[in-house]
């Protein structure tokens, strides 16, 4: 089953390898892997294999891996678990809203990024617990700096996936299965053996999260990451070229556009002056193209993207494009012509 609608939204379709295997995985992975029955033992084997697969692709030990059925719970586990009396939480103004929410209840400091989206980590102390976003999910900006000599380091790898490795001094880290075209609703939370961490959730035994996390989805995600990483080797160059093509086209063909500085090749954010984003996104959808937006009028809370505002970029008329492995040059060529036309139409309608 191949959809003909070109998708530039952040969510990828489930990887074909996982999609084909899914019914078989559900047949094999139904038992509780923590019990002692025969079926449970084979389920436990599947879980261990999945752990090893993730460990090798993410560059961590398999016993540092924990699976989350709610990926964004990992922000709380990863940050709050490192913070105790006398510590200060340090984060940035382009971090995820989940990070902002945790900072509200802690002694904390928010660092402002430069125009290029970079953070200056030089003023940190050994009592600081730092949130480090490897890649910004709205713009693709990659953080070059690494906090050194800090008390704890939480790494948000939800947008970078397997593309960027962890810094050596990481304490906790979070990935989202969708970044390698795995099923949604699966997060990987890593807790370093060296971390000074205390579970911030109510718990009686050694479990990190209440669980249980769906074993079939964990196994499907492991299949997806294996296949995705192999695809990425072949397709990274194409995605990089497409990224450059889109940036060039917008800056030379659509006047009054504001393109965010880039980094990761699969992400582009562009804003158009005098354009209502809701109208633009809806018109593009009517023409068969799905895109995301960071503009206030398209957001559930009617607030403009805090990331665009922090970078001094235009928040109105914003679209966010994600280039997937399946994206073709033809898709992009046709889309850009439609985009240019639609931006002109939206401006004319005012």
């Amino acid at each position, binding site marked *: 089953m191949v959809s003909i609608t070109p998708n530039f939204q952040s969510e990828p379709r489930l990887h074909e390898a996982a999609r084909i295997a899914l019914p078989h995985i559900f047949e094999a992975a139904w038992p509780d892997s923590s019990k002692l029955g025969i079926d449970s033992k084979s389920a436990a084997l599947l879980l261990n294999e999945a752990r090893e697969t993730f460990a090798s692709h993410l560059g961590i030990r398999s016993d540092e891996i924990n699976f989350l059925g709610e990926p964004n719970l990992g922000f709380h586990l990863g940050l709050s678990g490192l913070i105790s009396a006398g510590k200060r939480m340090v984060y940035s103004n382009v971090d995820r809203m989940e990070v902002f929410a945790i900072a509200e209840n802690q002694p904390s400091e928010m660092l402002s990024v430069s125009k290029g989206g970079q953070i200056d980590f030089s003023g940190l102390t050994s009592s600081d617990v730092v949130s480090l976003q490897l890649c910004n999910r709205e713009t693709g900006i990659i953080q070059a700096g690494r906090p050194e000599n800090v008390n704890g380091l939480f790494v948000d790898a939800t947008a970078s996936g397997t593309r960027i490795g962890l810094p050596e001094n990481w304490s906790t880290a979070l990935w989202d299965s969708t970044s390698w075209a795995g099923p949604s609703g699966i997060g990987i939370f890593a807790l370093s053996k060296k971390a000074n961490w205390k579970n911030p959730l109510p718990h009686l035994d050694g479990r990190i999260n209440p669980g249980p996390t769906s074993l079939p989805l964990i196994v499907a995600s492991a299949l997806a990451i294996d296949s995705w990483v192999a695809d990425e080797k072949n397709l990274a160059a194409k995605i990089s070229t497409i990224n450059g093509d889109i940036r060039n086209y917008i800056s030379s063909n659509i006047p*009054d556009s*504001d393109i965010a500085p880039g980094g990761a090749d699969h992400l582009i954010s562009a*804003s158009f*002056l*005098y*354009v*209502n984003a809701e109208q633009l996104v809806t018109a593009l959808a009517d023409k068969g193209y799905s895109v995301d937006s960071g*503009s*206030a*009028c398209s957001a559930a809370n*009617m*607030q*403009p993207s805090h990331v*665009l*505002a922090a970078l*001094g*970029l*235009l*928040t*109105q*008329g914003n679209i966010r494009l994600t280039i997937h492995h399946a994206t073709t040059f033809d898709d992009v060529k046709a889309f850009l012509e439609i985009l240019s036309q639609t931006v002109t139409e939206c401006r004319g309608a*005012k």
Partner: protein
Amino acid sequence: MIVDCLGKRCPLPIIELAKALADKPIGFSLTLLSDDPASAPDLIAWARMTGNAAEAGELNTFQITKLTD
């Protein structure tokens, strides 16, 4: 001159601002009133992109100066 965009959502304040400035001479200043949460970041971006000046004043008030045609 006051351009009152209170209650209007993005991108209307910036569109009405551009319309108000269209036939004005360089150096012309006006006050824009807007309570849209996107106006503060967007007026700064608009000024940078178009070569004009925008400065946030008291609550919901922005001082705009036309510096280019």
